[in-house]
């Protein structure tokens, strides 16, 4: 890094490479480098082992279920000729995550803009700390709160929605049970992924070139005009990347959802109705009562979750990294 911080002398062309010096390291230094390299490699090994051992544990269940593992909706791995599949579970996991994103992304954009562009300087630090504090509040606490307090309030919202807009298939509810629903879980998960989305977006927004912002203001733009013309286009990568990171978190969320929902195994669009499902929550709920096939099936669920979140997170860091380097701001 620091090696390139010198001025290239006149007369040297750009592709003259610095002389590489043969280094003869002492044994102590070589041991030091080896130890550092080994710690670095250990993360690679651990992640490899995660895939291997989840696959190993999942193998018996996957062999029993075959390809129907991806299409079945019921979950009875321990029954005599048990049939089980992840279709309904993944469906509801995605629905919870989508509801969470639908609520969290606009709030996160607004919060990030407020912290960077609207808040007084003194408040800015406090708000940044608050965002980080929100991220540190355990999932368990959000779940307890959602179950004991927010659930009731949100059931009221759900009732209102289904009475006044029940003709929309998503808001349709059979019966009169509005608690433990996909909607309630989605709202709580939205609160949980807000901090990460906000902090990613805030950081990308903060890299907006000041000259361009001041240019917009100097040309007579209002503050909102400046935000819309400069900050938002510049931060588009941050908004997408932050949303995808939040999606990754939302898909993997476990304990809060486990405390809120009651599992259901059908695929429909009724998000306000009681009952929902999620990969993580089902693992947590079923672990204690699972037999040997059941355990293996849960490990298969874990493997699926691992694969999904890896893909989403890789895509997210790709987008965020590209939005940064593409803007050419970070040296």
């Amino acid at each position: 890094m620091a090696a390139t911080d010198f001025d290239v002398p006149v007369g040297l062309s750009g592709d003259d490479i610095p002389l590489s010096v043969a280094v003869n390291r002492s044994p102590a230094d070589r041991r030091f480098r080896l130890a550092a390299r080994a710690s670095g490699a250990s993360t690679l090994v651990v992640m490899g082992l995660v895939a291997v051992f989840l696959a190993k544990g999942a193998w018996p269940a996957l062999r029993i279920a075959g390809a129907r593992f991806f299409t079945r909706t019921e979950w009875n791995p321990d029954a005599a000729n048990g049939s089980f599949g992840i279709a309904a579970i993944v469906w509801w996991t995605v629905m919870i995550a989508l509801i969470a994103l639908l609520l969290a992304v606009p709030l996160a954009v607004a919060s990030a803009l407020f912290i960077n562009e609207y808040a007084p300087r003194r408040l800015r630090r406090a708000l940044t700390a608050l965002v980080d504090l929100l991220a540190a509040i355990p999932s368990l606490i959000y779940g307890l709160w959602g179950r004991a307090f927010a659930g009731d309030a949100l059931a009221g919202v759900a009732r209102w929605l289904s009475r006044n807009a029940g003709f929309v298939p998503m808001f349709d509810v059979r019966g009169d049970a509005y608690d433990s629903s996909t909607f309630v879980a989605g709202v709580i998960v939205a609160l949980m992924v807000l901090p990460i989305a906000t902090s990613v977006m805030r950081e990308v927004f903060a890299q907006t070139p000041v000259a361009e912002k001041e240019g917009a203001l100097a040309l007579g733009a209002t503050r909102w005009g400046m935000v819309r013309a400069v900050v938002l286009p510049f931060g588009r990568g941050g908004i997408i990347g932050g949303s995808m990171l939040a999606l990754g978190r939302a898909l993997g969320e476990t304990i809060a959802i486990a405390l809120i929902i009651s599992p259901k195994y059908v695929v429909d669009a009724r998000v306000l109705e009681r009952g929902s499902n999620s990969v993580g929550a089902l693992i947590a709920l079923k672990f204690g009562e699972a037999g040997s096939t059941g355990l293996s099936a849960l490990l298969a669920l874990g493997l699926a979750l691992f694969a999904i979140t890896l893909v989403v997170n890789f895509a997210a860091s790709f987008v965020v990294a590209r939005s940064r380097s593409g803007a050419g701001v970070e040296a």
Partner: protein
Amino acid sequence: MSVPATVDPAHRVPERPVRPRMVGRDDGLVLVGSAASGMSLVWVVYERLLPLSGPVGFWLLSYVAFLAIYRSVVRSTHGALAARDRVMAVVVTSGALGLAAPLTLIILFVFSKGIGALVKPAFFTQTLAKVGPLSPEDQGGAQHAIVGTLEQLGLTVAVSAPLGVATAVFLNEVGGRLARPVRTIVDAMSGVPSIVAGLFVYSLLIRTLGWSFSGFAASLALAMLMLPSVTRTTEEVLRLVPGGLRESALALGAPEWRATLQVVLPTVRAGVVTAVILGMARAVGETAPLIMTSFNSSVMNWNPFSGPQSSLPIYVYRLVGNSDPGQVRRAWAGALALIVLVLGLFTMARWVGGAPQRRERRRQRRQAPAPAPASAAAAPASTSAAAAPAPTVDLTRTDHPGGPQ
């Protein structure tokens, strides 16, 4: 800063930039007035005239009516452009409120539910071993869970802190062909759901190697979750250490390992400690991996290496679904204890993280009588590790989204 002597004092330029007022005096009144009239309008139309009612609809529609009225008022006095600007300012601000409000609600709610059982001494001195449905309120507590939490947290830090710092040293100081994939994988690791970490430890240690459920197994799962945040934060502060510091140490003949361990790492001590404490704050509340690693126990288990062990999160998780209201009260006390622990760790992290800046400010205050340019030049010129300008970075950030840069 300093004004050239030739300027006549009477025409002196103000030293602080003039900040044009964004919000005038009557703007606040317009805001309050619009809110009041929006609410009144919705009350009349929605609650009285139409056959509808309900608090949710009322507040939702009031907000919309407020925005519409506010827009037309500002539009009539300041024009369309200003109206859009003001309305968006209100929207953005209410978005930020939507972020801040839940935290207050959550803390107040857990406090009101948990304080009653938390202040009883039994919470800290007794376990659940002899607790039945008929046990009185002042019996039974979370001593076993507190012990488990402390032991597991200690083991988690003992595993993840050295490994995380060493990995960061590898990424930033040693480097090589392996650095790129390691950085990518560390990023990927920070997105691994906690339940997957628990399943992995269960599958490897308990199912394959035949360990029993234990606190240590839980610590390993937690360490896996904490490692990426320690690594990325440490790497970030290491990147801020001026290269001259390393080069001076090497030029003085220090071997690489001494330059790293005795010069580079001490300058980022505050940053590393902050990263570790923040990692602890996040690990301490993790519940999902504990279900399949430490399991749970209602009796005291001092040995984290063998047998099921309780800890605060799993204690709360198991008790809160109990049909016995006494147990539920104990669960809320545990939740409050957990929040206090997280808040305490978080405050400590901010305090430690702010220490270098505080020291710097004190130093500057001591040197205040000296002319300003001298003190500004003094900081970068100092080469000793202790006096080096403290790297400043927001250590408490939540994420490590960046890929290879």
